[in-house]
């Protein structure tokens, strides 16, 4: 029986699904056509190539079509579609609709196919004689990735996961038997509050452009081996490789900026498997490009260069397997769960691994090899060694991150290290030391042969200078208190910066060609310096005891109590600041806590005052999610986040009580200590725990709405001035006699947890009875907060920007060389 469902918009979904199928079909067609265009012997026959291009163009159009349909669905909140329901909601502002677009796996796969299509267009336009073989590989990758979006059942197995699946198809619930089910689905799940950050609008597209562009050096390497153009592919691969490194690197750092701004683990890098998965291919491609440059300049190391280039893309796919298959499960906080694509993702990795191995084995005899050994004092030799160490650092990341994979493969049950951050830090600092040292002194070597005396003199001078500088930096920042390996890494990084600064200075004198690499190296060195200081010497300032606290991962953590309790308006001294929780502001769905920081000099004069607003979102589906707020100084950051606040309880209580206290006085009374009854005359002062109250006057016509007053009825308001913790409040509880009965209207001062009632008039001695209800401490508004100081973190961000500029310069330089050749 077919039910006709009311209110569904099926057209965009059908259209979208059509585009999904079409994009897969055309990608496959294009792959096959380009394959035959490459292998056919008659070079004048362009028909295969034309077919390949047509397939590719239609593929591009369908990929854009998928994007448009999906955007239409999310933008118009069509919750009959599972994707829209799962990832967005009506309340979401427009710019976050874009982030909800790629929150799910399907959206991010689409992003990947989109960038591959864009890059494909560049290749069709630019690659000329390389077009056929290179596009065969690119379109093979496009075919495999589009298949992830299919969501079609083949031989009883669902292949891929379509973003256009309907909610009633995705979920089983009795409600879907009703034709009018849609009117009960009021809102979608919404976007994870942690992803509601502007970095999440641009971080995923950048990252995926990086991943997608890594196919190009791979494709060139395959084409070179396949077409026996063994040396020609290297030059374009270097250019595209540099582009991929730059974009992927930027994407990774954007992710770390996001983590720093919106996550609570308190830092910019946490060695989470998901983070590692993105760095692994990056490191290998960096090594690959360096070895490619070695080969281009000297003819050495061909096999290593090719292998690394090919393998870097296999690692991209391996990374996507790690994060998307659900295998990381217990070890990662933010990996995706399995969408039933486990073997599909494995298949993807295996295909490209087979291509890599087959080509290298097949052509092993023909690869250009140099019999002559590299000179010890030559640039190529040390670039090669440095790249080998980059590979080793990557190996360490792969081995540790993949522990769940080893468990699955060998049926073992090994748990990840208890302190993985420390393990990664120590190892990676060691590798960083070696690599940065090499990227320093290699600058003083020349390709092929170097004059050793001069080399030793310059290297020595710069080493000595860097050692002195390192000693100073390490002493000032306190890095020396950490493990020695971090000091070594600092030395390496500083040496790298100094040595490359010399190259840069020379570059301005004429050898401008070398400026790009020098700038990129300087940026990388600064990035490391910043990371080492900021992560190594960051200190929790929300701790009442003084002194530097060892940070997790760099040294053993003691039972450090990192959270402090702030009652509203009760200042607390913390890390040189007087900190006060002064209020809240709610911009749905965020609850901002205003925390005032004040600094006083010795004379007690206020020297600095600012307000930070860390926020929490009491998300009905995800619980309380907090985001930090940070005060940026030039040389350090002060980072604050709320780790606990009673706002969730408030919500529940408000729900339970219907929000109106008059209806439930018994429930309300529970929130207060037993009442204190005071008699006072006009002008009297009443003391209470947190301050005092002055009965300053009486109001004979207080404003109480909607109560008709009879002839004999009396209404009187007591004007109270309340002073607590140096702040003034006023309140006017009202006493009323109506139809011979006494009533009163209480007033609350929530900030200080006080409720006052005007309960009686005692005409004999002209006194008035005021009843005070004070909330116990635990009922008063408070936040539990953690604050961390990150010194010199700007080096990290500045280093990143400089590195990107360096890459850009290098890309321009290599492109110029391309035109010459």
């Amino acid at each position, binding site marked *: 029986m077919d039910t006709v469902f009311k209110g569904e918009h099926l057209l965009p979904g059908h259209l979208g699904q059509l585009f999904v199928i079409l994009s897969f079909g055309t990608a496959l067609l294009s792959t096959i056509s380009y394959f035959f265009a490459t292998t056919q012997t008659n070079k004048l026959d362009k028909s295969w190539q034309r077919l390949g291009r047509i397939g590719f163009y239609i593929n591009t159009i369908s990929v854009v079509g998928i994007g448009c349909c999906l955007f239409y669905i999310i933008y118009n909140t069509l919750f009959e579609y599972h994707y829209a329901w799962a990832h967005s909601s009506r309340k979401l502002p427009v710019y976050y609709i874009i982030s909800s677009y790629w929150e799910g796996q399907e959206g991010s796969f689409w992003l990947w196919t989109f960038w591959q299509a864009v890059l494909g267009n560049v290749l069709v336009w630019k690659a000329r004689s390389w077009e056929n073989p290179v596009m065969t590989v690119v379109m093979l990758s496009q075919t495999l990735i589009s298949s992830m979006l299919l969501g079609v059942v083949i031989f009883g197995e669902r292949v891929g996961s379509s973003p256009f699946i309907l909610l009633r198809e*995705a979920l089983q619930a009795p409600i879907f038997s009703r034709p009018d089910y849609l009117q009960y*689905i009021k809102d979608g799940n919404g976007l994870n509050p942690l992803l509601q950050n502007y970095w999440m609008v641009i971080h995923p597209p950048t990252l995926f452009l990086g991943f997608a562009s890594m196919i190009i050096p791979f494709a060139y390497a395959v084409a070179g081996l396949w077409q026996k153009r063994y040396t020609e592919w290297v030059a374009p691969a270097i250019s595209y490789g540099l582009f991929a490194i730059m974009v992927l690197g930027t994407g990774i750092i954007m992710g770390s900026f996001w983590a720093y701004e919106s996550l609570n683990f308190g830092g910019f890098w946490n060695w989470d498997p998901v983070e590692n998965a993105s760095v692994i291919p990056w490191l290998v491609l960096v090594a690959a490009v360096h070895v490619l440059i070695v080969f281009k300049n000297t003819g050495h190391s061909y096999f290593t260069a090719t292998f690394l280039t090919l393998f870097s893309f296999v690692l991209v796919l391996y990374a996507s397997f790690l994060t998307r298959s659900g295998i990381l499960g217990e070890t990662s906080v933010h990996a995706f769960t399995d969408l039933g694509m486990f073997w599909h993702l494995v298949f993807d990795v295996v295909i490209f691994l087979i291509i890599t191995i087959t080509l290298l084995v097949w052509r092993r005899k023909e690869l250009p090899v140099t019999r002559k050994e590299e000179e010890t004092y030559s640039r190529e030799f040390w670039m090669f060694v440095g790249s080998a160490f980059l590979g*080793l650092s990557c190996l360490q990341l792969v081995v540790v991150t993949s522990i769940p994979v080893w468990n699955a493969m060998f049926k073992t049950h090994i*748990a990840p290290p*208890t302190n993985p951050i420390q393990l990664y830090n120590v*190892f990676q600092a060691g590798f960083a030391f070696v690599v940065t040292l090499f990227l320093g002194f290699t600058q003083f070597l020349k390709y092929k042969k170097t004059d050793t005396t001069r080399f030793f003199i310059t290297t020595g001078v710069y080493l000595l200078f860097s050692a002195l500088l390192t000693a100073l930096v390490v002493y000032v920042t306190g890095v020396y208190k950490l493990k020695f390996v971090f000091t070594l890494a600092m030395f390496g990084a500083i040496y790298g910066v100094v040595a490359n600064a010399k190259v840069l200075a020379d570059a301005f004198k004429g050898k401008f060609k070398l400026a790009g690499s020098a700038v990129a190296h300087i940026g990388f060195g600064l990035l490391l310096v910043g990371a080492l200081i900021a992560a190594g010497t960051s200190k929790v300032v929300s701790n009442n005891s003084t002194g530097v606290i060892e940070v997790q991962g760099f040294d053993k953590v003691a039972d450090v*109590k990192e959270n402090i309790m702030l009652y509203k308006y009760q200042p607390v001294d913390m890390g040189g600041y007087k900190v006060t929780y002064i209020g809240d502001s709610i911009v749905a769905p965020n609850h901002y806590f205003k925390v005032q920081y004040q600094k006083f000099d010795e004379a007690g004069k206020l020297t600095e005052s600012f307000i930070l607003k860390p926020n929490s979102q009491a998300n009905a589906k995800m*619980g309380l999610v907090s985001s930090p707020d940070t005060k940026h100084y030039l040389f350090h950051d002060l980072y604050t986040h709320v780790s*606990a606040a009673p706002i969730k309880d408030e919500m529940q209580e408000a729900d339970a009580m219907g929000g109106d206290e008059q209806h439930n006085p018994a429930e309300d009374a529970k929130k207060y200590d037993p009442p204190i009854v005071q008699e006072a005359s006009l002008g009297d002062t009443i003391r209470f725990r947190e301050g005092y109250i002055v009965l300053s006057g009486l109001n004979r016509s207080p404003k109480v709405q909607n109560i008709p007053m009879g002839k004999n009825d009396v209404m009187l308001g007591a004007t109270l001035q309340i002073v607590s913790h140096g702040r003034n409040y006023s309140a006017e509880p009202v006493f009323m006699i109506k139809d011979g009965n006494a009533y009163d209207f209480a007033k609350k001062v929530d900030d200080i947890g006080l409720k006052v009632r005007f309960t009686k008039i005692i005409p004999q001695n002209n006194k008035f009875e005021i009843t005070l209800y004070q909330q116990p401490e635990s009922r008063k508004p408070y936040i539990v907060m953690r604050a961390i100081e990150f010194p010199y973190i700007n080096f990290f961000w500045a280093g990143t920007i400089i590195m990107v500029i360096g890459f850009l310069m290098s890309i321009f330089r290599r492109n110029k060389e391309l035109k010459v050749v």
Partner: protein
Amino acid sequence: MKKSAILGIIVIAVAIAVIISTYSNSSTYGSFKDAEKTQSELHIVGHLNKQKPLYYDATKDANYFSFYMKDNKGEECKVVFTGTKPQDFERSEQIVLTGAMRGNEFHASKILMKCPSKYTEDKVEVTEANAKQASL
């Protein structure tokens, strides 16, 4: 010996060192019983005993949180965590603790919990709309 051979040996040596250190640094999954026998930190997988009380009172000590957990062998133990109560802890389905035994209490240095969040469970929430009576 050729330089490339020396380099190869160094690379292989470091690679082996990496693998061995990974293996020796890796921890084990265990139970509370295992934790009693050892001084070193280990991972324990289990679930929260929702019958017994969770204790976290920010007004008394903002850095003390305790609860009772049953490990996968069914053994129960009191767990102490120095820090704030993780959000939505009550709703957790599975907990992975990292820590060591101190006396009768298990002191956790890290808590990883799995919640029936939107990522793992698709549940349609149905709200029946009924117009609220306008009240005074």
